[in-house]
């Protein structure tokens, strides 16, 4: 008897959630950079409107694919959709519409023990091309530079190439690939001679931010345009949004949404 009761309790505990069954679910997929913003907005949104929002972070490229395949409602991207992606979307009858939710500075990060304070765009390009291989050449210690990049799927990687090295540049084959902002941060914070790039919102004290062309990235310098390596963060929807999707897309423009974004270290609109 006790066993049966236990079993009943077990199943009941699962069934508790069924009360929410009629609630529509928004599914968000995409950029790991937008991840923290998306997650926090989602939490706030669920609390305020009672609409469940599921967020996963698999990279901008995957976000685009998910939107095209119809497997997510909103795609979070840290770059714009490519022509090929838009063409693929059109073919499937999906009409991607971009919404800028925030801005992000792309911060060049090094180990906190690295004496290098500032790098020029040309120096960064040379490091990533593989022509500069030692920190000594840019005013640092005598140590081989460990170059860290993101995977091809990453919007951050695309933005980095577009904004710093130029799109056509071939990144050195010895560059190490990490698959998320968090992984780059961990790698740089544990490797004294590493260099990598991160969304501004991911920067914390475990890594040191290097100035680019003499300007340190911060919410202020990104906002007033003096820090040049910045990009908008997007949410893509299929067609003009309506209903709860529209409510969610509009959230970053409200006072609360803006506060959430800036508390996370990103730059609101």
């Amino acid at each position, binding site marked *: 008897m006790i066993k049966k009761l236990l079993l009943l309790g077990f199943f009941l505990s*699962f*069934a*508790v*959630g*069924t*009360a*929410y*069954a009629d609630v529509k*679910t928004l*599914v968000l*997929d995409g950029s*790991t950079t937008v*991840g*923290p913003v998306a*997650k*926090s907005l*989602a*939490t*706030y949104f*669920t609390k305020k409107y009672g609409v*469940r*929002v*599921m*967020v*996963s*972070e*698999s990279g901008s490229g*995957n976000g685009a694919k*998910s939107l095209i*395949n*119809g*497997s*997510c*409602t909103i795609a979070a991207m840290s770059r714009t959709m490519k022509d090929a992606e838009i063409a693929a979307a059109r073919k499937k009858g999906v009409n991607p519409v971009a919404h800028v939710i925030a801005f992000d500075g792309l911060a060049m990060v090094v*180990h*906190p*023990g*690295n*004496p290098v304070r500032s790098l020029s765009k040309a120096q960064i390009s040379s490091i990533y091309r593989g022509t500069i291989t030692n920190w000594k050449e840019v005013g640092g*210690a*005598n*140590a081989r530079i460990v170059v860290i990049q993101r995977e091809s799927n990453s919007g951050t990687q695309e933005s980095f190439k577009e904004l710093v090295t130029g799109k056509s540049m071939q990144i050195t084959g010895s560059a190490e690939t990490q*698959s*998320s*902002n*968090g*992984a780059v941060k*961990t790698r740089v914070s544990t490797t*004294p*001679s590493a260099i990598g790039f991160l969304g501004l*919102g*991911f920067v*914390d*004290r*475990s890594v040191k931010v290097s100035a680019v062309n003499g300007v340190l990235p911060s919410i202020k310098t990104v906002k007033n345009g003096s820090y040049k390596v910045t990009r908008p963060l997007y949410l893509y929807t299929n067609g003009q949004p309506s209903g709860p999707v529209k409510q969610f897309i509009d959230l970053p423009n409200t006072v*609360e949404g803006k*506060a*959430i974004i800036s*508390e*996370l270290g990103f730059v609101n609109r």
Partner: protein
Amino acid sequence: MNIGTRKILDRSFTAVGIGSIIVMALALMIVVVPIVYNGIGAVFFTGTVEHRKMLQAEFSRGDSQYLSSEVASSNRYRAKVYEMLTGFEAELETMAPEKKAEYQAKYSQVRTALQALLGPLPGDPEPMLTRFKYGQTRWEKAEEKLHDLLYESKWDNTNPDVMGKEYFVNRAIGFEGTSLSRLFPYINENLEKMLLPEFTLYWGFITDSSVDSHFFGGIWPEIQGTFFLAIGAMLFAFPLGVVAAVYFTEYARPGFLNSMLRSANSTLAGVPSIVFGMFGLAFFINTMKVSESKSVIAGALTLAIMILPTIIRASEEAILAVPKTYREASLSLGSTKWNTIATVILPAALPGILTGGVISLGRAAGETAPIIFTAAVSVGSAIGLADVFSSPTPALSWNIYNLASEHEAATQIRHVQYGMVLALVTIVLLLNLSAIVLRARISKKLKG
């Protein structure tokens, strides 16, 4: 070979056997002890008054009267800190501009460290994110933050040939001669009175939803998602697997097709799980459209395909192990072939089939790759049974990976990650244990 050498060989074989068991036990200890130790830390820990405030505000749990008396007593000690801050701010205004700028930079660091320790300071705007609404909820973290407040980390770059070395500078020295220098010894002495650490047993870690992307709260949606996925996979794979095994052992005629099917099945058992994940995405979601987006059902189906070969193999072995005499006795009594299979062979093979099933169940619960693209999300609320056809779910295996690599504040919430690991290991262990118990009971019944 004479008896002497044989004895020596025999003994050394035993020794090697015992040795390998000891090595295995040690390896298991090395793996399991930290998991258990750190994982338990998510439920049992020294919580501060900030943790109790959080519980009261987010889950309305705890004795509100007792809490308010605690908050009042902690605020008495905090008030002095705030007083010192306002005193120093007034002092800043009287300073010469360049001196003021120098102190201001240092002072803002102190404020940040204090916010991390005690939560928002008076005059701060009310934070939107729950993670900034409270100070440190765990005492061991508070001690780390205290160190950050008392000492500034600096890097010694005097030797240009090597990378810098970290050293710590007492912050109090930087404020020597100002009113703020009293702050540091005061906090060092009175932190306990400000945070009131107390042994905490937080069962909510298992039964609560997470608050603000796993900063606070528990992991119930993840546990539930894991159950849904594993059991869902089992619902599809187990009947299919047993039926396939019956076909292979009882009906299939030996021949080219049969041996092809068998070797295909064996090969499938060795395919990496990420391949199943991609297959699940391409087949169940993009082609079959079992659901609009990622969903539990798509994930469960993908996991089912992944564990199917194992179940088929285990069931085949179990059916083949049933003594031939059983079958002959049944057939000689005039029973049909199907009746024999259903009433004699399958019951006798059940313990073996169940073992295979449960091993697969454990695997389904623990796999990450197949559910990345088909079912798992990093943040989401618990879903109901009715939502499994339309909604994705957080799941332990994926969230452990997410917290380890992608989470923006992974280092601050390691305890949650360890808690999830322990929960997953416990779930798999419980599943295995229940199978062993079930198996023993069935075997007993069969004998008796």
